[in-house]
């Protein structure tokens, strides 16, 4: 943890509910290094978007703080660009208009030509050259998502926050965009926090994969360190000897352990989330689920 860039410090989110409050999650601790690509995987409704919104400054945690660059965040910032779960382009603006809006928000003194040049650079980068004057309604889902990426990158943020950016896309477009995002992140050394439901996507893109348990009362159960080499390419990633070890570990978590993790791990310290490297370290001893289940029945 030489260059801790962002850390979640004991954040919680609670909502009022009939007869008290529901705790979506509490006591989340997570640190991210500069230039690192972190993916979060967890079942629907466990609070991933909420965590991302708190990181973005769009939502306030009920407890705890988020530290970025040694400062507690106070609301949204141009340093942290967000790619939203829906593409959320402004439908009355063209592709160029949407990207230029972000650029001119960041550099308010720039003249129109400077803004256009910067916007054009990032429209070209995501491969939308020639579609500058189309409106979002005239674009395909993949193209809209690319505009969202161009808009986020164009302000040259210190960090990118992506909420299931590719989940609405077909497999082919998704693959292409994954390649592009990976290339861009490596070239620019972006620190990236991404939510996904797609295990293969996480393994391909992420340096570290955070596994979240089901809510309510979700916790970050494990941080899976990706043992695959940085130089991995999508085509033959599944041929890597460690690929299935990682994949099976994550899927096993999602299918078997995410629901019962909290009960099965008494004394779990949320401040010291275990880091695992499936296939490299000795496999973590699976808790004897039969015994625990019987024990919980006895309650």
């Amino acid at each position, binding site marked *: 943890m030489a260059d801790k860039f962002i850390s979640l410090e004991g954040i919680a989110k609670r909502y009022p509910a009939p007869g008290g409050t529901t705790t979506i999650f509490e006591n989340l601790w997570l640190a991210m290094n500069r230039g690192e690509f972190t993916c979060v995987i967890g079942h629907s409704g466990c609070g991933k978007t909420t965590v991302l919104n708190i990181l973005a400054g769009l939502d306030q945690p009920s407890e705890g703080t988020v530290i970025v660059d040694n400062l507690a965040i106070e609301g949204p910032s141009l340093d942290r660009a967000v790619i939203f779960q829906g593409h959320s382009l*402004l439908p009355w603006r063209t592709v160029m208009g949407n990207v230029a809006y972000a650029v001119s*928000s960041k550099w308010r003194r720039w003249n129109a030509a400077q803004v256009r040049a910067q916007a054009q650079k990032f429209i070209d980068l995501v491969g939308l050259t020639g579609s500058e004057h189309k409106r979002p309604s005239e674009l395909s889902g993949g193209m809209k998502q690319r505009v969202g990426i161009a808009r986020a990158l164009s302000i040259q943020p210190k960090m990118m926050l992506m909420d299931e950016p590719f989940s609405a896309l077909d497999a082919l477009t998704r693959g292409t965009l994954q390649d592009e995002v990976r290339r861009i992140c490596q070239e620019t050394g972006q620190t990236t926090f991404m939510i996904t439901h797609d295990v293969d996507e996480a393994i391909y893109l992420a340096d570290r994969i955070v596994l979240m348990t089901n809510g309510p009362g979700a916790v970050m159960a494990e941080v899976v360190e990706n043992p695959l080499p940085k130089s991995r390419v999508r085509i033959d990633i599944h041929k890597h000897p460690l690929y299935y070890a990682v994949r099976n570990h994550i899927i096993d978590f999602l299918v078997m352990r995410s629901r019962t993790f909290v009960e099965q791990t008494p004394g779990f310290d949320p401040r010291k989330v275990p880091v695992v490297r499936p296939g490299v370290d000795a496999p973590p001893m699976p808790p004897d689920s039969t015994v625990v289940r019987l024990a919980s029945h006895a309650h």
Partner: protein
Amino acid sequence: MTRRSLNLRAALVSVLIFAAFIGAWHLATRGIGAVQQMDPEYAKLMGATATQGKSAMPGPLDVGAKLWEHLRRPFYDNGPNDKGLGIQIAYSIARVAIGYFLAIAVAIPIGFMIGMSPLMNKALDPFIQVLKPISPLAWMPLALYTIKDSGLSAIFVIFICSLWPMMINTAFGVSAVRKEWLNVARTLEVGTLRRAFTVILPAAAPTIVTGMRISIGIAWLVIVAAEMLVGGTGIGYFVWNEWNNLSITNVINAILLIGLVGMVLDQILARAARLVTFPE
């Protein structure tokens, strides 16, 4: 192809309905009444109705002839009780325009405030709920008493009746702006004023223009009644004056003109609505 033939057939049906209406009107107002024998002096007083069996209701040909007269001399001015139809309608349009633009200037900023601030929304809601259902003409005596000018009072009535639909629609449009779009502005650290103009205004514009369209319709309905009350000038006054002159021909012409102008005003706003709507 099919679309075009549909339009063509619709136009054909419209023409047929129009022809049937005019035909029925003509037949119904033809001279069929009994002709009475009477003293020529008295007959002169009674007019053509009694002497030639002509219906008191003008036929389409009478109205057409009168319309032609008006169209040839729309802007003549022979004193307070005899002005061209063009002048009268121009007065009405001017009053509507002034009252309406004043209402825009007041309703849209207040609507923005209500839409953006839940506090103001709650605080102003009772006033709006009580003021909105008041017939605009009910304000007339109060306006006449305080403003002491009939023309200005008519403008005030237009102002007050145009206010509510625009204010309510603006508030609704502003408060219903999609959260994602506001979040885009927030993550870009866009200031309040710039956000109002670059995100909220374009997002709420279709709803706002719908309110403006409702308002112009109401304003045009109300101006006729208002001018009948205050008198002097305007198409409403013209209608009332011609009724007092028992010139049903002129009344019918005025009605026709009121409808046409109302349609044009509505179409202008419809076009504005098309300009600001965005496909999603």
